[in-house]
């Protein structure tokens, strides 16, 4: 077990590096740069652009500085955009450690702020979980709880009462969660709950009350709920027909025991498979939901960064996303072994 964990953790490093390389390549292949603003705004003039490029290190070579190498400058050889970001390089004349030291880089658009400030630091005087990352983490967890709490029982009941109205009803609920795109779903929920019923404000003035979290959670989690319900149902149906279930019943075990101890554990395997990456996806935020509810998370940041070509932000969030996925998958693999002892983790 320990060996497994260590090996997976060690694998993190090369995977992250490969992700960084690919992202870096793609980023710079995309036309335009961080100082190419929205077409409706006034653009930066050439002189300022040059100064800005110098300030942000965009005048350095991207990968390897061969010109420096030819002058025998080994340090300069690696003083390029990629290495400066990942490991360290000169920033405004001084050597600064990069990503591996936790320095996620300066944002190109929100000038002056570093990515860690934007994403991980809470506004003045507030707690750590009020940072953008914190908000998204909370919403993601809530959505996951919501999805599992309702999705799994729904799937189980559906399977146990297959082809009855209960089954069809829950299937319908589950399906509607996936068929309606979340921005349509979201706006209708807002109209119903905020405008007609006045249960919540359309635009929350503050995110400190639990009430305003309900709608975003539902909209974010509903898709996963649908998937979970369906997967659980299918899985349960599968397991229900296994021989060992028949044996258990033949042994005279009560139905409840059969369902809980024998069916559920095995039925949950495919569900657990999607939980890991789903959670990572939920935590990294959803652009659409954050825009609609003006939710102060980092999902919107990420998509806007790509549009704005904010290189540090893109790299940082991609790498964090990659890290979360890795951890999520690792956890999923671990959970496998608990659920099905026959799966050996090697």
């Amino acid at each position, binding site marked *: 077990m320990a060996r497994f964990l260590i090996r997976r953790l060690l694998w993190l490093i090369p995977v992250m590096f490969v992700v960084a390389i690919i992202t870096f390549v793609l980023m710079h292949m*995309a*036309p*335009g740069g961080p100082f190419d*603003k*929205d*077409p409706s*705004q*006034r*653009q*930066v*003039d050439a*002189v*300022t652009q*040059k*100064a*800005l490029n*110098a*300030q942000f290190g965009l005048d350095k070579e991207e990968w390897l500085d061969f010109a420096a190498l030819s002058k025998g400058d080994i340090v300069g050889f690696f003083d390029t955009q990629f290495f400066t970001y990942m490991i360290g390089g000169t920033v405004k004349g001084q050597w600064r450690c990069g990503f591996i030291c936790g320095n996620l880089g300066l944002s190109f658009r*929100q*000038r*002056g*702020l570093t990515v860690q400030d*934007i994403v991980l630091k809470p*506004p003045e005087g*507030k*707690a750590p*979980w*009020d940072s953008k990352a*914190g908000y998204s983490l*909370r919403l993601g967890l*809530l959505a996951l*709880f919501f999805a599992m*709490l309702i999705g799994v029982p729904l799937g189980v009941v559906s399977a146990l009462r297959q082809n009855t109205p209960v089954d069809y009803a829950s299937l319908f609920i589950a399906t509607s969660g996936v068929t309606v795109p979340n921005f349509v779903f979201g*706006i209708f929920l*807002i*109209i119903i709950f*905020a*405008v007609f019923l*006045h*249960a*919540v*404000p*359309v*635009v929350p*003035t*503050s*995110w*400190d*009350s*639990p*009430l305003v*979290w309900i709608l975003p959670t539902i909209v974010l989690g509903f898709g996963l709920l649908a998937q979970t319900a369906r997967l659980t149902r299918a899985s349960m149906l599968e397991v229900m027909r296994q021989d060992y279930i028949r044996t258990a019943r033949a042994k005279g075990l009560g139905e*409840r025991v059969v369902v*809980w101890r024998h069916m559920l554990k095995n039925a949950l395997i495919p569900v657990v498979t999607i939980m890991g990456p789903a959670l990572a996806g939920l935590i990294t935020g959803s652009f659409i939901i954050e*825009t*609609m509810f*003006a939710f*102060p998370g980092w999902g*919107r940041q990420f998509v806007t960064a790509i*549009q704005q070509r904010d290189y540090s932000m893109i790299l940082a969030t991609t790498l964090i996303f990659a890290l979360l996925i890795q951890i999520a998958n690792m956890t999923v693999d671990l959970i496998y072994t608990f659920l099905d002892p026959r799966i050996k983790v090697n």
Partner: protein
Amino acid sequence: MKKSALFAIIAVFVALVVVACGTPAAPPAVVQTSAPVIQTQIVEKVQTGAPVVQTQVVEKVQTVVVEATAAPAAKEKVLRINLGSYPDIVDPQKSSFVNEIAHLNLIYEGLTKFNEKLETVPGAAESWKYNDKATELTFQLRPGLKYSDGSLLNAARYKYSLMRNIDPHTAGEYAAITDEIAGAPEWRGADLSTISDEDLAKLQATVSESVAALDASGQPCKEGADGYAQEDCLTLKLTLSRPAPYFHTIMGIWVSYPAKQENIEAGGDIWWTSPKYQIGNGPFILKNMEPFVRARFEPNANYWGDKAKVPIEYAYITDSAVAFQAYKNNEFDIIGLAAEDLETVKADATLSKEANIYPGSCTFAVMFHQKKEPFTDQKVREAFAMALDRDGWVKDVLRGLGAPTLTWIPPGYPGYKASDSWGFDPDAAKKAIADSTYGSVDKLPEITDTFSDTPRNRTRNEWLVSKWKEVLGVDVKLNPVESTTYTALTKDQATAPQMFILGWCADYPDQQNWLSVYWKTGGFGERIAYSNPDFDKLVDEADQTVDPAKRADLYQQAQDLLIKGAPVAFMWNNVNSYLVKPWVTGLQLTPQDAGWAGAQVPTSIDIDASKMPSQ
């Protein structure tokens, strides 16, 4: 089963509470009291012929927002505005985006400012004077000006801000606007990686002489912190590299706003995010700024002029449909009115009275690249311009939110003159094609219409293309590109597309901003390779003329020349369209309003609490 289910439920509930109620101290927002309200609604029954008054009892119950605050506050008078997207940076010398300016205009004030008629009037400076040749501009500041924290505001502060704007280390995005100051372009354009420290210091010194802060006797003010505390340091003398009698107007925009040096240095690169450091001299104080959620401004008691009457709150909802719902729910007092919602608003008895639609500050045109065929031929450009039904555009596509135009400078701005050149004339358009070097539509090379791909732009450009097909019979290809890609393409003459829609909005109300800055060789018109030496001559002369009448005339001649050459197809002027609640009073609407209705003159705004719905 029961025990584990119970446990699960408790766990979830605990998690919910813990997760959602993250912060220990909840800032008291506007608390909505809950009480069933009996409202009397008058319902008219038209069928009987005479209106019958019926009393309906409507219960409106609003749930209490659970917060750990003390006694519920009385209905607070706050002007709640939905601004749109959150600013990238709120720093006077680094900002450029209209929403950023909306923040800066509240916190600071320049030497001059613009009144409701867009005239340049005294701001922090009570008067100014040019020398004969308009190469020197001297401002006289009001005595006793104070920052919102009570500290002294004098000319030394403005000197610092202007220097900071030009300083190459700042790399301000609007820095070019003060290039008329002697020495500014050289210092600003210095290559920091190669220049020696001495040379850099020399360039800085030149500019420092051009921006001189003087005391009552004409001597330079003291340096540093002493200078900031010097009470008689009230004169600011600017030396310009060439005559520029419009420069006092430029001093009204945000690039010279006097942010405090100590604060900038203490706060570092992120000084602007904290209300502690954003101390300004404007009509409002920044109380707090929660990124992407809210910003709050309180009236500044230390402001020299008319004091603001109500606090202001900005929100940052970018989804217009959501903002509209929130407005209807009385959560906002001013929001932008989107074209899609116009019908709904016009048809609603209440909402239609709340709509404020008035001329804006921008002109949009279909740009033709003068160096890419077939738009190298003026006749082809004329043909395309004359094939455009601008009235139809405004009616169908803009849904009435706009005004057609055939000239460059928009109405309401100095230098506006309506034109009738190249208006909608299908027959003349067809003839122009016949008269061009191509002779007929079939001989035209492939034409592509490039645009930034958003749903709105799609419908717009699809409309355009179908109209050109209808009138001229030409097949124009649609080329939507991602928005940043679009910007990158349109920035450079080599990559700029054959044909694309672009607009220009006024930075300040003067012809120089519209004509010289844009169309002079080397200006923004360079992207489509527009260059007319006659135009340059007229505009250069106009820039340097002091006499206002002569100046206006020269600019007019230049504009006429511009239109005659049909370089682009001038299409429409935008309008400002906002929904404003009836209890907001004292709004002064100007075309230059940055971000919200009445933004140009915020101090006159008040809220009549008697008109607000009781909660």
